[in-house]
Every structure is written in structure tokens, then in C-alpha cells.
């Protein structure tokens, strides 16, 4: 039971080791804290920059949307979709085989002189209605016109080429589709090949009506929508399609009476007490009161409110008081 000298050095060593470990931990903690604060600082600096960048992107995209790019891309998507659904892989392969021929044709058609000629022909087609009917003599007389003479020359040359092409097609029955189209156009025969029929306008796909043309929502029963009630006197301006005033300052007691007559409802003093309270509450609180609030504010039991304004007291009180329709956010 005397002192315990052999254990003392041991305890001192333990303490020293603990103290060393504490030092280590403290250093490590300081390092972790430094890293964390660097991260915090980074996020802190980055947040406003991200918002700035985001604002820029939003502005740019908004500009594109207003210019109609997204609506255009959307419609283009439909066009591509229609083409994809109408063409089989076989059709695309054959089209691919003929791509050089197609491009050649396009190039020939888009030479400036050809375009000028086609343009004039197209113009003449527009005026076709106004052209005088020509008899046999008229035709002969017109034949003297130098422009007509030139035109007839071109037509004859064209016919010659068409005839030559038709001749060639007759000898090579396995001609690719594009030439067969020429054959169909020039020589008649068994009707257009399948893929040409696909090119013709198909039954119009029902296209979703643009949002802006959406009809007014049918969310108000007709009997409670005075604007649409049969035989209703025309309401003054300022009413929305749901029969609620869009601007509460345009309300008059006469309006409330007129609206009540359409419900139909005859307004008693009890009704007026509720209506007047609802108007003053809306002016003070900035929102249409709910049924419970009307009940305690106007001092009328909820059951009595249902008796005064049958079926939907909250809605009817708001309508008659000329304040916004009570509702949720959706």
C-alpha cells in the first residue's frame, strides 16, 4: 500500500503518447477545416457566377423561343417523323443509290436560266385565269407571235428529250424509281409506284391545336356563369369568362343584384351583410376569404351560409362581391 513507483513511468509514457496523438488529430482537423473552407469559398464564389451564366443562357434561349425556333424545330420533328414512318429501309437504300442522279437533277433545275424560265412559267400559270380562250384561228394568229414561236421550239425540244427517256425506260424495266417517275409522268401506264404514292399528301395527321387557341375552360357550370347564361343581359366589361370580376373596383350593388338574379337568388339583408363583409375583407387582406373566415368575420354560421348561398357559398359570395374566385394555385 505504499507508493507505486514502477507504474508511474508507464503512466507518463501513456500520457505523452496521448498528447502526441492529440497533436496529430489537431493538425489533421485543421487541415480538414482548411480544405472545407476552401470548398465553401469555392461554392460561395461560384453560386452568383452560375446564376449570372444561367441568366445569360435563359435570355438567349428566350430570344430563340420568341423568334419561333423551338416551335419550328418541333414541327420539323413531326415532318421527319412522318417521312420516317412512310419510308421503309428499302426505299431509303434505293434513294441512296440514286443520290448523285437526284443531285444532278436538282443542279440542272437550279441553274439560274432554268430558274428564270420556270419562274416565268409559274407566273403565267397564276395568270392562266385571265388568258382569253383561243379557237383554231386564234391559235394560228398567236403562232405569229415571236415569243410563242420560241416557246413552241422549247416545248418541242423538251418533248424530244422526254420521248428519248421514255424509250430508254421501256427497254430497261428495272430502272430505278426516279426514272420510273418520269415514265409515269410522261407515258402513263400502270399507275405510280408505291413509293410515289407515299410522297403524295396523306391524310392530315391531327395536329394539336396551339395553346393560345385553347377554348375557355369549361370549369364553371353554365348556370353560374352569367356571361354565358341563356338570355343573360350583356355584362359590363371587366368580367372574366368564369363570371368573376377581374377588377373589384368596377363592382356596384346593381351588378350584384343583376348577377344574383341570374343564379337565381334574391338578395336579402342577410346576403348583403355577407357580401359587404367579404368586400371589406378582400380590400384589407388582399385575398378572397374562405368559408370559415366568412362565417366568423360576418357572424353567420357555416350552415346558414349554405342556406343563403346554396351549393357553393365561397364561390357565390366571391362572385356577388366582385372579388376573385377563391381557389388553389392550380
Amino acid at each position, binding site marked *: 500500500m505504499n507508493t507505486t513507483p514502477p507504474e508511474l513511468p508507464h503512466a507518463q509514457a501513456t500520457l505523452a503518447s496521448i498528447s502526441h496523438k492529440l497533436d496529430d488529430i489537431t493538425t489533421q482537423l485543421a487541415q480538414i477545416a482548411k480544405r472545407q473552407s476552401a470548398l465553401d469559398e469555392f461554392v460561395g464564389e461560384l453560386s452568383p457566377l452560375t446564376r449570372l451564366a*444561367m441568366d445569360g443562357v435563359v435570355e438567349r434561349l428566350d430570344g430563340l423561343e420568341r423568334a419561333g425556333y423551338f416551335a419550328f424545330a418541333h414541327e420539323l420533328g413531326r415532318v421527319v417523323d412522318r417521312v420516317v414512318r412512310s419510308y421503309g429501309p428499302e426505299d431509303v437504300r434505293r434513294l441512296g443509290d440514286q443520290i448523285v442522279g437526284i443531285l444532278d437533277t436538282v443542279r440542272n433545275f437550279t441553274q439560274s436560266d432554268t430558274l428564270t424560265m420556270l419562274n416565268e412559267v409559274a407566273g403565267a400559270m397564276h395568270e392562266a385565269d385571265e388568258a382569253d380562250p383561243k379557237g383554231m384561228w386564234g391559235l394560228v394568229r398567236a403562232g405569229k407571235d415571236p415569243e410563242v414561236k420560241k416557246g413552241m421550239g422549247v416545248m418541242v425540244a423538251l418533248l424530244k428529250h422526254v420521248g428519248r427517256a421514255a424509250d430508254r425506260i421501256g427497254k430497261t424495266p428495272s430502272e430505278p424509281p426516279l426514272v420510273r417517275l418520269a415514265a409515269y409522268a410522261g407515258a402513263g401506264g400502270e399507275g405510280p409506284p408505291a413509293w410515289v404514292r407515299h410522297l403524295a399528301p396523306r391524310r392530315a395527321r391531327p395536329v394539336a391545336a396551339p395553346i393560345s387557341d385553347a377554348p375557355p375552360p369549361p370549369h364553371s357550370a353554365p348556370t353560374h356563369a352569367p356571361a354565358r347564361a341563356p338570355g343573360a343581359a350583356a355584362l359590363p366589361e371587366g368580367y372574366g369568362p368564369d363570371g368573376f370580376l377581374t377588377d373589384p373596383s368596377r363592382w356596384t350593388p346593381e351588378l350584384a343584384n343583376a348577377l344574383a338574379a341570374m343564379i337565381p337568388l334574391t338578395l336579402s339583408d342577410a346576403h348583403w351583410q355577407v357580401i359587404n363583409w367579404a368586400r371589406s375583407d378582400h380590400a384589407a387582406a388582399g385575398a378572397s376569404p374562405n368559408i370559415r373566415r366568412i362565417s366568423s368575420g360576418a357572424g353567420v354560421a357555416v*350552415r346558414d351560409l349554405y342556406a343563403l348561398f346554396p351549393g357553393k357559398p365561397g364561390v357565390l359570395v366571391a362572385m356577388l362581391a366582385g372579388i376573385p374566385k377563391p381557389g388553389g*394555385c392550380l
Partner: protein
Amino acid sequence: MKDLVILGAGTAGTIMAQRLRRELPAATWRITVVDRDDQHIYQPGLLLLPFGVYRASDLVRPRRLTLPLGVDVRLAAVDHLDTERRRVHFADGSQLAWDILVIATGSRTVPEDTPGLTGAGWRRSIFDFYTLDGAEALGAALESFAGGRIVVHFADVPIKCPVAPLEMTFLIDAFLTRRGLRNKSEIVYATPLDGAFTKPRASAMLGGLLTQKQIRVESNFAVSEVDGERRAMHCYDGRTLDYDLLVTVPLHAGSEVIMRSGLGDDAGFVPTHKHTLQTKHHEHIFALGDATDVPTSKAGSVAHFQSEVLTANILRHIAGRPLLPDFDGHANCFIETGFDRALLIDFNYDTEPLPGRFPLPGVGPFTLLEESRANHIGKLGFKWLYWNVLLAGRELPIDHRMSMAGKWSAA
């Protein structure tokens, strides 16, 4: 040393503590956050908890860990506020003085207000999902549901997350379909409003959703009484709805502290200037989040957008400059529609929810007022964002003012 006291450490109070601690010098301003418990609940998760998406432990974190370093945290029940002497009186008799008070006391459900609701059938055939144990009990009830009529209703506006009852209806429809019970069940959505959708554009675009999902809507159904024995819910106009399972969103009210202190309206919500967020009672008292009476949704997104305006206004108030009327009522909500799809709405005091793309015009990835998978993924991904970015008072790359960019407004 001056004192700023934040009452409530929910979404709004926590974000305000984070932002103000960063802005106010620690040498001159002490910030104290007061709450009665240490449980911060991720409330949007309560909607998905009954369907097994989350466990309760996923949705709860200690408030101390969500609050910043450098603020005093006082976890104690408050008795009342003395606005004359600017003091918080705690239930244990102690007091806390303030130079500036921020009210972020939120709102609570009061099922006791509806006669019979908490009677015979409570938590047996009647379930709320706005509380953690309510949502868990509903999950258990759905697990053992074998078919019948489910009624989803809410007592009256305002409620937190006004779209939640509708989402719950959609999710129950999807749940029963997956379990092969849908053809043995009827789903009824009872609302005290004029219809499931009350805004013109939303009605036009989404009106078909309920018919398509074969959900019956009982509109203008203001509940007067619930008979738990007979499983019947009565309306003031004499209608009665029988149910096998009633999912209720009870009446909402402001905090009892607010009511006891005479700071609230009839329902206990604090009358607040809707653009500056200063209370109408007192120039040194500000309010945000669900606790106020401002006419926009009671939602976390609103508290977040308000926090930006309110932080700026408190700094201006301290500096003696006029407050900025900058809050526009901006709210932004995902709406689960079941089958792994969701809607998104973005609106403010003046603009009803419109269709379009969000946040990038034309690109999205979220679709406004239109169901999509991307929206559902956004809703699920939001939990991480909530705990780590939103509550930390970090800036999201979305402005607190609502933007018309990307919205297809009515021509």
C-alpha cells in the same frame, strides 16, 4: 451587441439563419434561433413515404446540424411574445430580448377542428399524411388494403402544399393499379373548392387527367362532420360520402404561440405586407414562409424565394433605408401524377401557372403544366438539393422573381 431572434427552425427559419449569419457581423449582431424540438422534417417526403419511396429516417435530421455555426440555438417551448417590450417568453419562465424578430413558425394541422375526425376511426380508417406518424400509419393501411372506396379530401384552404391532396389521389391510383386492386376500388377526390383545378389554363390542360384516371371529383364539399363508426363524411349541404379509407388533410392554422400573442388573424396567420414581408403589426417584426397570410402558396419554394428578399430588407431596415417591395409571390412546385411522372408549375401573385419549359426556355429539362418523366426525376432529386443547397442558404441558379422566359403565355 444587438439581438436578432428567429422563431422557428423549419425551412424558412433555417435558410434565414444561414443567410443572415453570413451577412450580419458576428461582433455586433447575435442571432438566436428558437424551436421547440430538434427534429427537422423534409416535408415534401411525407407524400411519398406511404408508398415506400422513403423511410422515416430519410426525412429527419437534427436541427442543430442544419443550422449554421455562430448562431445560438435555443430548443424550448415558447409561451408568448411581448411585442411591446420585445421579448420572447418561454414556457419555463425565462425570457429572450430581440431588436429584430423574424417569425418563421409555419403552420400546423388541427384535425380536432372537424367534429368526429379524430374520433373512432382516427388512424384506423382515417389517416392524415402531413405528420410523420400519420404518413407511416397510412403506408401500413395501404399495404393491407384489399379494395373498396378511398376518399381523399382537404378541409379548407389554405393548406401547406395545396397540390398535395391531388398528388396523393394520383399516387393512390398508381399504387392500386400496380397492386392489381384498382378494379376493386373506387377513388373519390373531395374538395371544398369549385373543382379539382380552379385556374383557367390548368383546368383546360389538366381537366382530362381525372376522368382519364377514373377519379370521381366531389366539388364544393365543405366537411361538417365525420362519423368514424359508420365511415361517413358529411358536408354542410347535406351530402354524405361513405368511405373504407379516408385520407384527410385537416384544417390548417398558424402556430399557437402566434395566436396566444395576438399576432395572427382568425386562423393564426400573421398579417404581413405581401411585397416587403414586414408584418403589419410592428416595424421590427418580419415574417416569412407558411406563417404569413400573404396570398401565395404555403410551400418551401416560397420560403426560399422570400428569404432572398427578406434578407435584403432586414439589412436595409438596419441601415435605415426603405424596404424593397420585391417579393412577387413566386412559387414553384412539382406535382406527382403517378406512374413515375410529374407536373411542374411556376407562378406568382399575378400570373397563373402557364405551360412551357423550365428553367431553360425551349429546352427544359422540366415541362411546365405537362406530365413528364423529367419532372418526376426532378422531384426525387430535390431531396439532396434541399438538405445541402437550399437549407444551407446557397443560391440556386433560379431568380426569386418569376420569369416569363420559357412560358407560353396566352396570345
